[in-house]
């Protein structure tokens, strides 16, 4: 059974750590990541043949995203750092096993998610289970239905928007947050997210739908025109 705890405010030394504290506001240069994606396989091939600089380039490229991921899962900076470090070291040790049938980044995210989950389970065992069945579909119907107007996120300053996003995702129950983070932030496929979390594909889909609806409803409070902004 996969168990973990997301009471981030009570973990560790009692410091309150926002899982998405490292989340920035929308990036206008997403093209750069697509360019980076195109030469990823060249770097991986070079690293596999012993090019240390190529592996270091891969680490530099993904360290921020992997740290964000491990922070999101553990909610604890020390654990997040350890999980990130071990994920990179393990990926180097097992690079020869990477077959290239998925992106290197996807493979790395799965290793990092596993490292982070292990630390979470150690720190707070039996706090919640990812295996728990979710409630029926009856309560899925959205209640908050107000117009957001065009570009609602542009009505907020960068730092304010960052706080809003951190706040709403932190409020999300861990079993939904995990799935949302892997699918919609890290952009893993449903199958990869299911495999990383030890869940079935239907369970991931069901949790993702709920996570998305819950986040929409939480953002509605800020984005509705004439709302609490």
């Amino acid at each position, binding site marked *: 059974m996969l168990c973990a705890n997301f009471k981030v405010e009570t973990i560790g030394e009692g410091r309150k750590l926002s899982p998405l504290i490292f989340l920035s506001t929308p990036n206008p240069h997403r093209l750069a990541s697509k360019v980076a994606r195109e030469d990823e396989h060249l770097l991986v091939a070079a690293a596999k043949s012993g090019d240390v600089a190529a592996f270091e380039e891969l680490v530099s490229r993904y360290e921020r995203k992997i740290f964000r991921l491990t922070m999101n899962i553990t909610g604890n900076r020390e654990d997040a750092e350890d999980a990130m470090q071990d994920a990179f070291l393990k990926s180097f040790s097992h690079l020869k096993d990477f077959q290239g049938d998925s992106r290197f980044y996807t493979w790395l995210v799965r290793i990092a998610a596993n490292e982070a989950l292990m630390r979470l389970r150690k720190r707070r065992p039996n706090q919640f289970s990812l295996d728990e069945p979710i409630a029926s579909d009856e309560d899925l119907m959205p209640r908050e*239905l107000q117009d957001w107007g065009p570009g609602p996120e542009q009505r907020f300053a960068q730092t304010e928007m960052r706080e809003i996003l951190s706040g709403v995702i932190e409020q999300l129950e861990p079993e939904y947050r995990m799935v949302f983070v892997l699918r919609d932030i890290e952009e893993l496929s449903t199958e990869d997210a299911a495999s990383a979390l030890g869940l079935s594909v239907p369970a991931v889909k069901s949790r993702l739908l709920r996570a998305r*609806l819950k986040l929409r409803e939480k953002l509605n409070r800020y984005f509705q025109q004439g709302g609490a902004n």
Partner: protein
Amino acid sequence: MNCQAVIHELSNFIDGELDGAMKLELERHFKDCEDCRLVVDQTKKTIEIFCDCEPVELPSDVRVRLHDALRRKLKEATH
């Protein structure tokens, strides 16, 4: 198709995982149902806002420790 059935398929619709007939049925529903249209548009926007976020720089002390550990490991591996 009622609103509850539409909401149940919302993620599949957004992710482009519905077959042609089901997709058309949802699109027809959205044309007539303002509430469901609002929900699908806002859910797409929610995903887009989170998805478009880039992480900020790694704290410098964390980065230094990561690269020190990495160099030690790489040194071990190449000797």
